[in-house]
């Protein structure tokens, strides 16, 4: 039930953000987001941004895996 993709907000007009996923652009509603800014990465599901991607944690997870698992 969870087809949601991370994309970057490149423009915001009112309640609507333009999201970029690898060069494809789609509009998404920000109605479910407390706050969002241009440059943020968000998860898009069914035309809505549902949560922000914490990019620091993303990098941290990848680093941890590389260290703990790939040695």
């Amino acid at each position: 039930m969870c087809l949601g993709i991370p994309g970057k907000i490149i423009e915001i007009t009112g309640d609507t953000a333009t999201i970029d996923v690898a060069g494809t652009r789609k509009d998404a509603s920000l109605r479910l987001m407390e706050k969002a800014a241009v440059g943020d990465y968000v998860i898009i599901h069914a035309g809505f941004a549902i949560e922000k991607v914490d990019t620091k944690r993303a990098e941290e997870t990848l680093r941890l895996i590389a260290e703990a698992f790939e040695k």
Partner: protein
Amino acid sequence: MDRNKTVLLAHGSGGSYSRRLTEEVFAKAFDNPLLAPLNDQAVFTLPAKKLAFTTDSYVVKPIFFPGGDIGKLSVCGTINDLAVGGAEPVYLSASFIIEEGLGMDELKRVVASMAATARAAGVSIVTGDTKVVERGKGDKLFINTAGIGVINGPELTPANIRPGDVVIVSGTMGDHGIAIMTHREGIMMDVPVESDCAALHTLTMKIIAAAPSGVRAMRDPTRGGLATVLNEFAASCGCCITIKEQDLPVKEAVRGACELLGFDPLYLANEGKLVAVVSSEDAGKALAAMKAHPLGVDAAIIGTVADGPKGKVLLETSIGNRRIIDMLSGEQLPRIC
């Protein structure tokens, strides 16, 4: 309705309106000596003994899309069906089923596109037909094209594919499918990708010239995508085809659009690409010939043919495991899950 601005039922009923439409729109644009007499048939001789003959109907919606239109699609599609069989396309027919009310300017745009595409490809549209159906019964425009080509070289058929052969695609997959899909109502997505609609016969001739005894089969992966064509190949030859996900060329923006909609590029239509199966000795030459051609710059080796499991198509995933790829059943639809 202004008879000059709109297509009317009268234009399809065989009388003076029909004649005027044929002369002023079709004959004028397609302009060649075989068509000029406007007889019920085009008469000609051909130098070769072996001929290829194909037909296709085009119902694409919308009729104008980024990178092409239904007219260009119909000419390229029929040329390609001949070309992948090793034939040089020579003559085409074009039949139109027009919905009453279609703008004359839209029709002229489509016809001009067909004329330009045919001219650039060196083929002539030598005979045709026009019918007009009532409003609501025709979805703007349907086109049927048939084509004749001559085969001077090897006959290509997937039954010739054998273990050890190499699978090559001529470029990025899924461009046309995504370009069309993202312009449908209810989806509206801005994808910087155009349809790859193109005539492939000069490319196929180059491939055959580079590897005359090594090319087993070629096909253009249109509806149903690459996965469907590979399944057809595997069924014909009874071998097993394995491709690597990592090696499949797909534009980043197409990847992004697929992720958003829940689509798989393996099942998307392509209108200016081909997949070729070539002997391993000649794979290098075939690949080089493709890359040297403007329509094959992104060509890549994507897989190999083995003995078994018989008739199956396998994918080696990006994390290293293998799974089966089936044919497409039904359309791909955007999903939430």
